[in-house]
């Protein structure tokens, strides 16, 4: 046990030292950054490029309204952001309060709350089973990725934003959505 831990420490130190010796790498197109998360007890993935920030344990002020998915309002760097329950938006609401909150990129600002964070992963682009963009509306999910033997549907943030707007009664043009 102690020997293995000592080996791990040694290896860690070597990896750390080697990282300074390696040439400068670039995040090229063949890699996709993903957030592995859990909403309503189900595994999902979310493209990191479509987010503007990840925050745990943010206070959310409840807002009265007819939408059960709308959890309330939260403050981020001087901006008031509406927060929606991702699980409710995906159609399987959970009674528990979501701990995590991710800010959608783009405007208007939108916060999506979920229950658990499984981690930040980088996968090859080929690992993502894609769909045609105009293959018709299938809710908020676009594509699927296999991580550690578990298939995770990928939540598309623009589609989710469109759904939120639809729920809120707004009409958005295609351009505005992007």
């Amino acid at each position, binding site marked *: 046990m102690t020997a293995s831990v000592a080996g791990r420490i040694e290896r860690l130190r070597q990896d750390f030292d080697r990282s300074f010796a390696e040439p400068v790498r670039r*995040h090229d197109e063949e890699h996709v950054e993903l957030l592995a998360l859990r909403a309503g007890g189900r595994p999902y993935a979310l493209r990191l490029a479509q987010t503007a920030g990840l925050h745990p344990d943010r206070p959310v002020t409840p807002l009265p309204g007819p939408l059960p998915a709308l959890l309330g309002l939260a403050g981020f760097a001087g901006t008031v952001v509406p927060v929606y329950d991702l699980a409710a938006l995906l159609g399987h609401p959970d009674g528990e309060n979501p701990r995590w909150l991710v800010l959608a990129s783009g405007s208007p600002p939108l916060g999506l709350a979920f229950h658990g964070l499984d*981690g930040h992963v980088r996968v090859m682009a080929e690992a993502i089973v894609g769909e045609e963009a105009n293959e018709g509306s299938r809710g908020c999910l676009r594509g699927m990725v296999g991580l550690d033997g578990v298939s995770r549907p990928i939540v598309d943030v623009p589609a989710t934003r469109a759904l939120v707007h639809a729920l809120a009664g707004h009409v958005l043009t295609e351009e505005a959505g992007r």
Partner: protein
Amino acid sequence: MMAGRTFGAKLAAGFGLTLALTLLMTATSALTLRYVLVTKDKVVEIASSSLTEAQTLSALMERRIGDYRSFLLADTPAALATVGQDRANFLNQLSRVRDTLDDDEAVKLLDTVAATESQHNARLDELIAKRQKIKSLTDTSQLKVEGMKQAREAVLSAIDNLIKRIKKVVAETRKESSDRATMAIIFLIGIGLLLIASAAGVAWRLSRDLRREVGAAVGHIQSSSSELEAAAAQQASGGRDQASAMSEITTTISELLITSRQIADSAQRVSKVAEDTADAARTGDATIDQTRASINAIRSQVDQIVQHMLSLGEKSQQIGTVVDLVSELAEQTNILAINATIEASGAGEWGRRFAVVAEEIRKLADRTAGSAKEIRTLIDDVRGAVNTTVMATEIGAKAVDAGSRQFDDATNSFRRIAQLVATTSDATREIELSTKQQTTAVEQVNSAASDTARASRETEASAVQTKQTAAHLSTLSGDLLDLVGTRGH
């Protein structure tokens, strides 16, 4: 009536009855004699007074007749006085006769005498007067008075009748008196017969009772003598058996004496062994004290182990808290790295290079979190092990306690054994002593048994003598039965 009385009482009653009858007869005889005497006295009185007086009356009448005839012849005053005196005497005698009479018919006859005498006296007074007138008496015919002779005859006749009557009364009274005397004699004879009969009855009754009761008693004596004789014979044979049994007993007691001595020797050996055991028990007592001290040391060390284990558990919990802190830091680092990546992705070329650094930071944070998780698992394992150890130690402590209690029990048992061994030693010494006393007692019993055997032989001899005496008594009883007259009763 006499049943149940003693023979003496019966004798007294019989003689008492006879005596009472004798007294009765004596009294009756006296009364009867008295009665006869009174009756005869009456006869004698009648005979002596009435008849004598009546005959005196007759004599006085004759004398008077003579006197007045002499007057008639002489006519002297003296003779006349005598005539007067004679009449007075006659009347006087008449009243005396009346006093003695109690028969009515005799009284009537006496009245007749008085009446005829007064007629005769009247004639006589006539005659006297006639004579006094005559100066010279030449012929008796001068003195003739009519009815003189008849009056005199009547007086004499009346006197004779009276005397006859009185004689008759005397005869009747005598006859009555004799009859009564005869009756008294018959009565006395009857009483005497009754007395004889009752005396004979008493004698017969006494004789019968004597025969029956004395005979029965003597019969019982005879049968008892026979039984006594048989019993004496049995006693004699029993005495012989007893003497032989006593000699057997003496032999057995001698064997018992030998056994008793052997027991005394064995008891002495047992006493020695018991003393050795008591010594060993005292040695064991010291060992027990040492063992008890060791157990107490184990107990306190087990307590210390428990304390250390509990302290270890506490420390583990504190480590866990620190690990939680590290986990929290790792998570926050991870979040910051993610956000840095997000920020870097929008910052062009420099952003991409920064993203690499951010990824490295994120990887470190992931590893930190993983290590913290491992530490967490290890700490949980340690706490589980501590809990298990504490529980096992407490079970051990309980086992030590139970062992201590059992050891106490064992100690108590051991001490009890030691006490019992001491008691056994005492008891064995007592047994030894008692056996010696028993040996002495058995020797005494032996001599007593010899005495008893001698006494049995003497008893046999005296039983033979008793048998002879009983036979003699039986013969005497038969003789007595012959005397009483109820042989074969």
